[in-house]
């Protein structure tokens, strides 16, 4: 992952959709940044799958515990974008 790349919400929702095998074009409604993954329908298996995909696609390593604690897209994006040695954009 290059130092200028930031994983966006759009990237994350795409990976979530792919990890769960959801159809394209049926998107999550509205502002999901602070909606919990539980409420979005991503259970622990789906979250493990998406974290695996993030690690592979971006070549980063997310600590298991921190990843499990990140329970919203905002929290997970913050984790991804700091662990990849990318400055946090806030």
């Amino acid at each position: 992952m290059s130092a200028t790349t930031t994983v966006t919400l759009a990237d994350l929702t795409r990976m979530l959709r792919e990890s769960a095998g959801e159809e394209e074009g049926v998107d999550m409604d509205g502002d999901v940044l602070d909606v919990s993954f539980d409420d979005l329908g991503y259970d622990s298996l789906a979250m493990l799958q998406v974290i695996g995909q993030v690690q592979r696609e971006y070549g980063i390593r997310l600590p298991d515990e921190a990843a499990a604690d990140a329970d919203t897209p905002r929290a997970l994006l913050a984790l991804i974008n700091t662990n990849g040695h990318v400055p946090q954009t806030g």
Partner: protein
Amino acid sequence: MSCTALNVVTRDLTVLEEPPEGQSPAGAQGVDTALDAFGLTDSPTRAGTVVFLVTGDSPPSPHGGVEDVAVRTAESAVSALVLAHAELVDGTKDVALVLAGLGEPGPVRASRVTLSRVPREDDPASAGDTTRMLLWSGSGAGDETRTRARLRLVVDGMTDDVFRALPAVVPCRPCPGPVRAAALCNSVNPTAALDAAKAFTADRPRPVALLFPGQGSQHTKMASGLYRHEPVFTEAVDTVLDLMGAEGAAIRADWLAPHRPVIDMDDVRRAQPLLFAVDYALGKLIMSWGVRPTALLGHSAGELVAAAFAGVVSLPDAVTMMRERVRHALSVPAGGMLAVAASEAQLRPYLIAEVAVAAVNAELQTMLAGPAAQLSLVEKRLRADGHTVVTVPATSPFHSPAMAPAAEAVEREYTRIGFRSPDLALYSGYTGGLMSEQDALSPRFWARQITDTVYFRQALDQLLAAEDTLLVEAGPRQTLTAFARRHPAVRSGASAVVPALPARPRGPAADRRSLLGAVARLWTEGHDLNVASFSGPWADGEDRAAPSSPVAPGGR
């Protein structure tokens, strides 16, 4: 130390036409009818009674009273409860009667309110649990806004003690309108919760389908926050456990054990009976709110609960069937289950010996089951190939050929069960569609459920294709809710889903808040909920609250 709770018994009364104006004070006929209905007739009792007429007027208007009974007015049902609480607590009156809908067509809703003192120290978690669900509505957007503004004035001054005294769910207007809102409030900033509540126009509520989870959804103390707090739930759990005799008592003890249970919750001897009891009791509870589900779908062991509600088997027979499954499963060598983030087709090449596809849950969520050693080999290969695998808490290889001896034994037992055809749409994971009469009546069909694959995903597809639906998951965790949320019909908003309980164990207060969230979701969907069913106290450690007060004439 004790705290107060308001016991509310609500009945709909038919009031004869008021005599012409001028002959008696407004509402006198209704007040008399209600006093009679609750047996508040002799004069000392009438002297200890205060009547609140819910008029919708703000501010409350003075009322001349009716004979020897004090009559006041209140702008909303919730403000009447607050006023009633104040008078009952300071001891001026023993009973309050809240009458709503007087002078309007249709029945008058009469609530008899009394005070009870309940010990608080039993359950420290519930002592601080003063969160209540307020439901309100309006005939249009403007009316809803005005109702909310009036409600705001009431809740703004409500102390912790008042919140604690209120029933779990407080309907704030007698006649529900189509614009609906709900807010979970406690004494910490209740107006913020009111202000933040979203209003929904609910003119065409989608029918409700109940989802019952199976093995894998159990957890320590699951749903125990409702037990001995919610009377209908409590009675239903006890009914199921009582059907299991001494074993039922041991199951209850392990379920509620403050420390380690004798037998772990993931053991089939605890997981399945308790899941059955909790799923069944939640189904009963949701129906007690006046919700009539049009479809049912259970996952694995949850299908037995669905069968009981669909009238395929009686409750005692369903419990017997579940117990036979458990008993014979124990004779099968230990096994387990895995959840894999992959499709059924991707997993086929990994199957060896008695390891089989146990369940197809969602697009990329499939379960495998089999004997322990074989399953562990498969797990290693899957992980080596980069598959995401989670071990499901299960001690038996349900839905694999390893269960065949148990299925045969169970089938013999099931020949004694009296099966009937389903009397509402019952979807089956074993056919992935609507259960046929032939299947419903077949002991073999039911026995094969322990060896065969669960096609939950296909059954959910069929259910959601039949009609746009509001799915309600009646069971612990949100396993089936998560599958449903990822379904295109739910993602697109055509259908919707709401869980009754939290996604993960978060303690008794969270169980109750989650349940109230389900009430709110049904309300904002536009379902007309049976107000009387909510009026029981949200008991703080009260031992086995009775479903209806013994002094209520006729009960409901």
